[in-house]
């Protein structure tokens, strides 16, 4: 009897049709658009050019890129510094309430980052709660203008993205074989040495996965700079949004998006290299 392959075939075909139509084809179209010219009447004129990429080296665009990378890097670093010890304590705790503690990190992970950014706006605004507490305590005499600054953007990004750093790290640290640490201690390594030589290398895939999940959205979540940075802070996400919605220059917007995709590709290659060495499964989420 011939095995019945209908289910297998139709599932695989359905999945590939969907992903080709709504994931591969759209990205191919972005690449093509990035190589076209801006049209006068229509959005895109069908004429090949590399001009859009050359234009990105223009001072204004270049500054936005540099500024975005700067802010995203600071944000990633802050998330790592806050998140690593947090994930470590959480993964290693023997508290009875571990499940609840983990649950309390999953809630912000699932909560809309727009709502969470709005909460930060409410805290930081000039007549917001932070200023009034500081005034009441007599620590400041004038309300601080915290909102609409680079610092506010970083606070908003860290607040929104910290769970995306903590959870991959937690998953990684949880799987860590505690006997390796014990062995190193028995062989006379001090705490610092154990951390640098054992724990850090073994949790590197988690660090990179977390950094990827923080760094890329930090550059591209346009509503956070929009709400917290005012007009002063423009990141790559705002640039793309601007080119697509107001400036109507889709080719330039597409070129920026391609650069962002290339950056993601680079980070993925690093992640795959490192996790392959560790024989890790895809334990990102």
């Amino acid at each position, binding site marked *: 009897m011939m095995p019945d392959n209908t289910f*297998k075939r139709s599932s695989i075909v359905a999945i*590939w049709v969907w992903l080709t139509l709504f994931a591969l084809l759209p990205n191919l179209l972005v690449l093509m658009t990035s190589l076209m010219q801006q049209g006068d009447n229509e959005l895109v004129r069908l004429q090949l050019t590399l001009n859009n990429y050359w234009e990105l080296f223009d001072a204004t665009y270049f500054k936005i890129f540099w500024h975005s990378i700067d802010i995203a890097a600071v944000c990633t670093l802050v998330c790592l510094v806050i998140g690593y010890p947090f994930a470590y304590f959480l993964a290693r705790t023997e508290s009875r309430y571990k499940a609840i503690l983990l649950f309390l990190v999953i809630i912000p992970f699932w909560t809309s980052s727009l709502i969470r950014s709005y909460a930060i706006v409410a805290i930081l605004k000039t007549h917001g709660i932070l200023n009034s507490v500081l005034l009441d305590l007599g620590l400041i005499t004038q309300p601080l203008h915290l909102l609409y600054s680079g610092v506010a953007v970083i606070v908003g990004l860290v607040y929104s993205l910290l769970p995306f750093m903590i959870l991959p790290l937690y998953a990684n640290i949880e799987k860590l074989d505690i006997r390796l640490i014990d062995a190193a201690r028995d062989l006379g390594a001090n705490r610092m040495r154990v951390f640098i030589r054992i724990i850090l290398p073994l949790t590197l895939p988690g660090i990179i996965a977390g950094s990827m999940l923080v760094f890329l959205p930090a550059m591209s979540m346009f509503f956070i700079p929009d709400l917290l940075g005012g007009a002063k802070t423009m990141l790559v996400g705002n640039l793309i949004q601007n080119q697509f919605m107001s400036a109507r220059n889709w080719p330039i*917007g597409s070129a920026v998006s391609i650069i962002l995709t290339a950056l993601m590709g680079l980070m993925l290659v690093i992640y795959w290299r490192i996790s392959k060495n560790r024989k890790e499964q895809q334990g990102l989420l």
Partner: protein
Amino acid sequence: MNRLGKFAYLTAVYLFFYFPIAVLIVYSFNNSQYSLIWHGFTFSWYQQLFADTDLQLVAVHSLLVGVLAATFATVLGTLTAVSLYRYQFYGRKLLHSLIFILIVSPDIVMGISLLILFSTLKITLGFWTLLLSHITFCMPFVSVTVYSRIIGLDKNIFEAAKDLGATDFTIFTRVIIPLLWPAILVGWLLSFTLSLDDVIISFFVTGPDFNILPLQIYSMVRLGVKPEVNALCSVMFGLTLLIVLASQLALRKKQ
């Protein structure tokens, strides 16, 4: 670090997570439009919210897209996880990587790529474009959630079912779904939440005739901090809380 230090550190981070949300919720009950000072407890912002018929329509749109997108994404994502686990086929590795890439990929890249697709195909932006986009960005999350559970199953079960004459479809409906329903349910809930919260992709792929909650909240939030917005955000937060609770209970049940 000693126990006290760890405790203090964890507490500080939890405070950082929850203090702003707590403030938001508290002020949604404050009986004053602008003031920071507590003017007494009121439900009036919530009453205004629930009486607003425009907002009701927008909420219905969001729930409709959320339920449909989550359902289709769950079907596709579960099929993907099952195919990746059970079958050898041409492009299997590529599919595995593609799912991973779609999860990591910044939302804005997916948003504009779908916008260009719909504009090339001359499809008017609105309900359909939004639904197709939401299914696409939710599906990889379902597939990862289900896959992480399916690898824990005993492969012999499938062999046994096959020996007893079950077709692949029967195995799927009678073996895989009953065993994996908690993960499938979690996938659905995660998709529903992602759909309900998505700002960036929806921003590009919906038209003026079909507004949804996150975009409505975005335009309200841009105008400043107001008690109505606090109330709406608190309701959304409460809904998310219930969904996370449901998902955790579903996962716990089978362990």
